[in-house]
């Protein structure tokens, strides 16, 4: 996958443009959110659970804080946790997958068993247990999510490396006396990176959802506002039964939009790598498939 190829892929479809726009907006807000926020997101006031008005375009929380300001400021946690945890997961997953696929033998057996185990164990309970044992903070959230979501990447990378290892150009490099590090760096990794990349994009979505779920369950960083903690506060303060839709809908919608955007980009990359997944190749299926071996293409 070349950079220009990736670019035209993203800009060439509405899914790509939608995804890029939302992610771009989220990144921008996560950097400048504190400056953009019209109010101090944590300042309480007497205007408790007020519906949207000119002063508060998304209304107020149970403590009278501005919902819109909280949404802006809360973007940072989702973006930060999403990207950082997915990065950890990508590094872990590709290292384990590479080692497992390339070296084989007992290394493979051990790492494969480890991957299997992580794939079988239910992720959210595992995250809950880990996050509860450590004290909740942003770092803990990132570490816990990153450490529990790498197994899928590891599995995919391993499979890819297994096929690459037997390919002619790798065999040739080995016959010419190339060392493992050289072969991995020059031949295996470049051919695996697009796969890792597409998978990591999808893990960003999972990480954002995980952070929100953990925060909703009270395992978020208590010192920071995030969309998940907003939902937690809204729920615990009885906003749903008070009919305070303006407090409940924005954080969930923000999560949904960002996850949707990231997933669309991820699916797009997956389709690009594996054209079989494409919705409609546009060519009739009835074309004769068998070539005459004696007829050669001019080259």
């Amino acid at each position, binding site marked *: 996958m070349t950079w220009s190829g990736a670019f035209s892929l993203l800009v060439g479809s509405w899914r790509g443009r939608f995804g890029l726009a939302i992610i771009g907006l989220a990144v921008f807000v996560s950097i400048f959110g504190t400056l953009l926020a019209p109010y101090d997101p944590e300042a309480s006031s007497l205007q408790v659970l007020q519906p949207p008005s000119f002063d508060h375009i998304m209304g107020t929380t149970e403590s009278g804080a501005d919902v819109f300001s909280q949404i802006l400021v809360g973007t940072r946690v989702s973006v930060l946790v999403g990207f950082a945890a997915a990065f950890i997961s990508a590094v872990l997953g590709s290292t384990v997958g590479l080692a497992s696929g390339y070296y084989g033998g007992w290394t493979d057996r051990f790492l494969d068993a480890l991957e299997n185990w992580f794939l079988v164990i239910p992720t959210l309970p595992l995250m809950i247990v880990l996050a509860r044992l450590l004290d909740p903070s942003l770092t803990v959230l990132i570490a816990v999510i990153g450490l529990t979501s790498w197994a899928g990447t590891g599995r995919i990378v391993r499979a890819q490396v297994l096929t690459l290892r037997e390919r002619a150009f790798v065999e040739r490099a080995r016959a010419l006396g190339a060392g493992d590090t050289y072969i991995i760096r020059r031949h295996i990794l470049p051919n695996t990176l697009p796969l890792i990349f597409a998978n990591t994009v999808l893990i960003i979505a999972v990480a954002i959802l995980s952070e929100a779920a953990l925060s909703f369950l009270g395992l978020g960083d208590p010192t920071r506002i995030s969309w998940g903690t907003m939902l937690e506060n809204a729920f615990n303060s009885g906003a749903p039964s008070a009919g305070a839709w303006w407090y409940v809908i924005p954080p969930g919608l923000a999560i949904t939009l960002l996850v949707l955007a990231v997933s669309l980009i991820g699916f797009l990359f997956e389709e690009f790598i594996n054209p079989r997944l494409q919705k409609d190749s546009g060519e009739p299926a*009835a074309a*004769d498939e*068998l070539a005459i071996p004696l007829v050669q293409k001019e080259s």
Partner: protein
Amino acid sequence: MKNLLEVEDLRVEYRGRPIVGGVSFSLGKGESLGLAGESGCGKTTTALSLMKMLPDGLKQSGGITLRPEGLEEAINIGKRTEAGMQVVRWRHVSLVFQGAMNSLDPVKHIDSQIAEVIRLHEKGVSSGEVSDRIADLLTTVGLTPALGKRYPHQLSGGQRQRVMIALALACRPSLVVADEPTTALDVVNQAQVLELLERLREELGLSLILISHDLGVLAETCDRIAVMYAGRIVETGTVEAVFSNPQHPYTKRLLDSLPVIGGERGLAPPIPGAPPDPGNPPKGCSFHPRCPYSTDRCLIEPEAREIAAGHVAACHFSPWASWPELESSGLAVES
């Protein structure tokens, strides 16, 4: 006597571009016709349009008339609706598909797949009769009836293709279309399956359309042969005529590229270039960019002309009295 099958100016279009550009041929009862050509020349598309089974987006036009024995009226396939085709498919025309591996439902027993088509086309057949007929069919294609209790994956590639042939005969159709029936098989099974098709044709009076890229296969099994290039038939005639006296440069080159056992002839140079996209063929004769004998005249589309009785070719220069010597590729076969 009227022909069993009459195809007249069959055209298939995809988004306004021709995939098959006006194909006409006919087939007598008990006769077998070979359709030859490179990949993408429209052979399979032609076969599927005989059953009106083209994928969405492909539009077919032209006349296809089938006159099965015992039927008063001819079946005008070209004009039939989908519902109308459902009673024609398999009852009168059946198909042996190229993928021997995947042509059968993997989660159903062989027996039940054959029984399904019998029950579909013949109402009120007793289950005893159905199982007798399945046993007969399997025996006919050289399999033991006990194999019917198995799943497709439990059979070898050759056995599966025999099952496919048994399935194709289940409703006693008058025409069987076999699309690359031997391509997925090894040499021994290829020969056996071809022999089987040949025998069935004689015993059951079947008509057969055999589609293959392998001229050798067609030479063994067919009475007549039609060579397709870029969605058109460029030459047609009896197997003897076409093989001994090809009248189109494309046929000539295809024949030259056949290996001859014990032959001392040098291997002909491969045909240069790739087959054209049938949707966007070159101007004039669509073979001319790859033809070693092409001249300016070839920019005008040649008419199909009868060279000898039943031998038709679409080339400005036919009949060719002799083929000019070409430079050897140097790929001479050591003898």
